[in-house]
């Protein structure tokens, strides 16, 4: 699971109001290499919940001098875009789980695939 996806995921259990952001408890993390695309990264940045991204990066120990608030004029700053690209698309959680901040319900992650299947009562 990449952090870009994590930034989009919420708990869809019925009755949960604030199921975002899901707390990452990772036991295995991997860093891949992916081709950098500046237009994609700069388009995705406004969609991101920046504080959730920084928090997720900290949980994985990958915060590496990313600013805690978004800098203005980030489109021109290629170094910044590369850092964001790395944290969004190259860092991957392979094993672990995602925990709902409201209910504490856990969604396990196995082989990089989070299991979002609900049980009977949800």
């Amino acid at each position, binding site marked *: *699971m*990449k952090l*870009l*996806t994590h930034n*989009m*995921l*919420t*708990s*869809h259990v019925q009755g949960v109001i604030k*199921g*975002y952001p899901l707390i990452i408890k990772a036991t295995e993390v991997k860093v891949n290499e*992916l081709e950098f*695309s500046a*237009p*994609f990264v700069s*388009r*995705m940045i406004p*969609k991101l*919940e920046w504080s959730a991204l920084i928090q997720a990066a900290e949980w994985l120990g990958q915060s590496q001098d990313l600013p805690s608030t978004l800098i203005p004029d980030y489109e021109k700053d290629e170094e910044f875009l590369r850092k964001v690209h790395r944290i969004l*698309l190259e860092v991957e959680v392979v094993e672990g789980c995602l925990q709902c901040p409201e209910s504490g319900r856990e969604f396990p992650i196995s*082989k*990089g*695939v*989070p*299991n*979002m*299947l*609900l*049980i*009977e009562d*949800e």
Partner: protein
Amino acid sequence: MYIWPYTVSAVVCHVCKCVLVLYLQFYNEQEAKKYSQNSRMIEIQTQMSERAVELLSLPEDQPCYLLDVGCGSGLSGDYLSEAGHYWVGVDISTAMLDVALQRDVEGDLLLGDMGEGLPFRPGMFDGCISISALQWLCNADKKTHSPPKRLYRFFSTLYSSLARGARAVFQIYPENSEQLELITAQAMKAGFTGGMVVDYPNSSKAKKFFLCLFAGVSGVLPKGLCSESTDRGVSNQAQFTAQRSRFKNMKGKSVKKSKDWIMEKKERRRRQGKDVRADTKYTARHRKPRF
């Protein structure tokens, strides 16, 4: 559990021990592999993915963030990656997702049941495609939540997950018109507009159905493909909007006692020369039971 000739996959969705079990039965480890290695299957899926992306009408030369519902072993996802897009795939079968992982797909995969709703924040995706997956939501046995409820939960969460102006294109094989009506009714209820695009409507072999849904902005429905020599009499589009229509029953007659029925009956009696009260704003108005 062994049911000849399939082995039921260990992952069974607890809410729907139904046709989803059938899907998991079909696509256990062996079947999933066979499905993904069959070159004819790959060709068809790739072609349908290509057409679906075409119908998405994404801005040119721009990498987009897309959702692939029922991504299976990633055959459609591969096409998305090749087109330069980033995608997230959702599927209910671990066997199929395992094959996708083995094939090293670029998109991020999620194990989930679309009928339970999509677990995303609002307005995230630039578009959504789904190849040969939506029909699995339509069948269910009595033990489960009803198909309309599941369809609605899926469409409403999809509507919110899409950015304004985004589209969702579903390639489906509709079993009958009831199934089609069920799907479109729930999609409209969730707020979508759009319609059905039919490619090659006159060829039983090449005929393909694409349900195109627009989130937020009403778009122009793309034209379906047709071969050169066909008779243009067959329309290959069906547009639906949020407009309400008066319902007629199967025989084309109005529902009994409805306003339409009453107005028609009054007309009939006028034509017969009988004495009929003039129509006013109170005509055919609903009265309380004790009237």
